[in-house]
Every structure is written in structure tokens, then in C-alpha cells.
């Protein structure tokens, strides 16, 4: 499996925010998107599950191929696409339902009704998100009773329950405390075996700790894309150098 973006251009109304991005992402890797705020990281990330379609003014051009198929093809069912490309948002956004129902939601909207299957799947997903021990006795409690870090792992479990092959994460730890952040990072590391992960972060240590490849964006352009180690130790572009040494951003 492979993700390929070809000359992706995105604009909001008349304002172009991505100016032709081309990159390819390999299976079971973690790719970090870094760059100063407003450079288009989130916008690009949201192209992969077509969340941008929800914004009326947003126009996406170019081509994105997942597994050789064009996800912007008119025949593509957007809901099916989103089932295989899960997403975790910057701020934990659990549903105002019980912990169990949060994770079961993706199954229920898929028409799964087998109670046993749902229970097993929910348990599996919560375990995958390294949250099981903390919530196994209070699955019926509101998701809002959890801490921010737990809520975010619940959101990850919720996304995993529908068995996506790709997981998009938009600054998943930026609203969390350091301990929760560490947990999320460990989780990302462990999930790599089974998922292809793209993570947006403005924390460069986080990028080095979690990712195999890093893409540096600047004002709507992809400036540099390389192995994380190489990009941080031996950047080829001056702009990347300036950014990672903290000279701007």
C-alpha cells in the first residue's frame, strides 16, 4: 500500500493555501508534517480523508492516490474512504455518550448489530489505544468523565474500531500535558506495525521521536521531505535549516 499525492493544490475561496504538493508515503510508516503555523499542514492532512469537502469554500485540485485508486474520483464513496482513513483531531472530541458507545459508534453506523461482535471489537480497539486498564470498569460512564489525555486515546480507539489502514493525526498531543503526550507518542510508535500514520506536529522533538519520515512545509509549499534523521541532522534546504534551528516559526 502506498499513498501518493500529485500536484495537490488547495484554495479557500480565492486564497490558495497549497501550491502543488507532490509526495509519496509508504505503508506502515509514520510521517510527520512540520512547519510554521498556517503553512497548510492541516489542510493537506484533511485532503487524505476529504474532510475539506465539508468546507464550502474549499477547492482541492490535483490527485491523491491511495492503493492506486484516485480518492477524488467521482465514483468514490466518501464515507467508505473515511472508514479506511481514520482521523484524530487536535482537541479531543469524544461524543457526549458513554465510553463504550463512543468506540462502538463507528461499528453501529456501519450497520453492525451483533452485540457480541461489537463488545469484542470495542475491547480490542480500546486495548489497541492503551486505555483498557484505565476504563474497563467504567465503560458505561460518560466519555467526558475522562481526563484530556484519556479522551484523546479514546478518540484514537474510536478511530481504530472501524479498522482503518491509514490514521491521520492533527497535532494529537498539543492540548495535552507532558505525561499524556508521552503516552500518545508511545502509542503512535506501537501502532506503526499495523497502520500507516501521518501526524501533524509543531513539536520537533515529537517529530523526531515518533516519525520515520518528515515533511517540512512552508507557506503552502513542500520544502523538504526526507528521512526524519536526515532532515533534522542534515537538511538540504536553508529554509528547513532555519526552521529546525528555531530561527523562525
Amino acid at each position: 500500500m502506498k499513498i501518493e499525492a500529485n500536484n495537490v493544490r488547495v484554495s479557500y475561496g480565492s486564497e490558495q493555501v497549497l501550491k502543488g504538493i507532490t509526495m509519496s508515503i509508504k505503508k506502515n510508516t509514520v510521517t510527520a508534517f512540520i512547519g510554521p503555523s498556517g503553512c497548510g499542514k492541516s489542510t493537506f492532512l484533511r485532503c487524505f480523508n476529504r474532510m475539506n469537502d465539508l468546507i464550502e469554500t474549499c477547492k482541492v485540485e490535483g490527485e491523491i492516490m491511495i492503493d492506486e485508486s484516485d480518492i477524488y474520483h467521482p465514483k468514490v464513496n466518501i464515507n467508505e474512504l473515511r472508514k479506511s482513513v481514520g482521523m484524530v483531531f487536535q482537541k479531543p472530541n469524544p461524543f457526549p455518550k458513554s465510553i463504550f458507545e463512543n468506540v462502538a459508534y463507528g461499528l453501529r453506523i456501519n450497520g453492525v448489530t451483533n452485540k457480541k461482535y461489537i463488545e469484542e471489537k470495542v475491547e480490542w480497539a480500546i486495548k489497541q489505544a492503551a486505555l483498557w486498564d484505565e476504563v474497563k470498569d467504567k465503560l458505561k460512564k460518560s466519555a467526558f468523565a475522562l481526563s484530556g489525555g484519556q479522551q484523546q486515546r479514546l478518540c484514537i480507539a474510536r478511530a481504530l474500531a472501524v479498522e482503518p489502514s491509514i490514521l491521520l493525526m492533527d497535532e494529537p498531543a498539543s492540548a495535552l500535558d507532558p505525561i499524556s503526550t508521552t503516552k500518545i507518542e508511545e502509542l503512535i510508535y506501537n501502532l506503526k506495525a499495523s497502520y500507516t500514520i501521518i501526524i501533524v506536529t509543531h513539536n520537533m522533538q515529537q517529530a523526531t521521536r515518533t516519525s520515520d519520515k518528515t515533511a517540512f512545509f512552508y507557506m503552502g509549499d513542500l520544502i523538504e521531505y526526507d528521512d526524519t534523521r536526515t532532515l533534522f541532522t542534515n537538511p538540504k534546504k536553508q529554509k528547513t535549516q532555519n526552521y529546525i534551528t528555531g530561527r523562525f516559526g
Partner: protein
Amino acid sequence: MEETLEKPVGNKKPKMTFESKGRTVYYQMQDRIFKYFALAATSLGLIVLVLLLYSVFENGFGRLDWDFITSLPSKRASKAGIYTAWTGTLWIMFLTTIIAFPIGVSAGIYLEEYSSRNRMANLIEINIANLAGVPSIIYGLLGLEVFARFLNLGASVLTGSLTLALLILPIIIVSTREAIKTVPYTLREASFALGASKWQTIWNQVLPASVPGIITGVILAISRAIGETAPLIVIGALTYVPFAPTSPMDEFTVMPIQIFNWVSRPQKAFAENAAAAIIVLLSITFVMNAIAVYLRHRSQKKVKW
């Protein structure tokens, strides 16, 4: 106040004071004046209400008994009852609700979730807001022309319900929209990101979270409908019907019309009847509000914020 600043205490440093001075005094006064004004306004409303209730209960309570509730109307005040009136009101309430609720809520959902923000949507929006302010007698005229005459439904319960449904539609639409607006966008996003369709998202996330607001709006609207007199008189609802309605096509009267009829008689005995009927009408409204509070509470518990 200023003095304390000048008087050094112990060493040279002037003592700090946190007392009001200058502008803060003025702000504090403003605060206090507004507080008393608001208190006075609230008490005025309460006092008027209590006086009203007192006068109604004093006049009507003695007249209120089981016979009064189960008797048909009569020319003799002491024999007259409100059976036809309250059954009429219940019929109207029931039919108005089942007509206005689905249409109003659907329209609210459509406007909030589906319609795109163009000039047409704006036009509809402005008109709905305007409709909420149209005097109810105008709805009566519309009902008379369209339902009673053109659709040939006559002065029936159905005509009355359709007319009142029109009257309360804008209220239901507006309160549905307001309720839906309070549902955070992040909730929809989370649902869409899991592959939910628009309808699944609305049905499973948006509506449950906005049900308390919607129910409150609908019940307020119905409470308004059962107090309406003018439009029903215009469509030809009678002040005297010998029998309680048994189908939507029957003639009817409602509590406010009956009350209006009795109040306009010179005899004191009829005034007592009116007061007793008012107590019953108030009780119906009260029960409705209690139901609203209960339903709200229940639906709020289901949504686990």
C-alpha cells in the same frame, strides 16, 4: 478615603487600601442601582401574577367541581360545564402538535444543516422571523380562506389545528435551529471522520444533543397555541357546541373561547364560571410545562456531556 493614603502608618510607606474611590464608586453605584431596578421589575411582575391568581382562585375555586368539568354547556350558569371546551382544547393541542412538530423540526434541520447560505436561504430566514411576529388574527383569516373555505374543511377541529400549526411553525423552526446551532462543529466532524453519512450524523449526534432545546421550543409553542382565541373565532369556532368533538372533522370550541364567552356575560355567576375555567386552563398549561421540564431532564441525562 483619600486620607488613609496620606497618613503613613509605622514607616514611611502609605498604607495600602482597597476601598472604593473615584470611578469605582460610580461603578459600584451603577451596579447597585441596576440590581434594585431589576429586583423591582421582577417583583412587580410577580405581584401582578399573584394578584391575578388570587382573584381568579377567589372567584372560581368554589365553582370548580367534578360536575363543572364533566357537564356540557348550558344557558344556566349553575348547570354549565366545560366538557366540550377542554376536550376541544385537547383535540386541538394533539392535532396541532402532530402537524407542526414534524414539519417545524424538519424545516429547522433543513435550514440549519442542508440549505446552502445563498440569497434564497436568507430570504426564507427573514420571512420566518417575520412570520413569528404576524398577529394571530391574520393566521385566522388565512385559515378561514384556505382551510375552511377553499379546502372545504369548515369550522372543524382540523381547520383549527392547521391554522394554529401555521401560527406556531415559525416558533418551532426558530427554536429547532437555535438548539441545533448549540451543537459544536467538532462533534459533527468526529462523526463524519468515522465515515458517517450526513443523515447518520444528524440523527445520532446532532439531534440527541439538541433534543432538550427542541422540546422546550415545541412545548412553549403549544402552550401559546392553547391560549389562542382570535384565529379560532375567525375560522368560525363556535362559542356554543352541544357535543364534544369525536373526530377531526367535528365542530368544536376551546377553553379560551368558552372563557371569553362567559366573561362577556353580565351575570356574576358566569364570571365565576369563567374564573373556574381559567383555573383549569392554567392547570393544563402548568402540566404541559411540567412535562417539558421532565422530558428535558430525561433527554439531557441521555446525552452524557
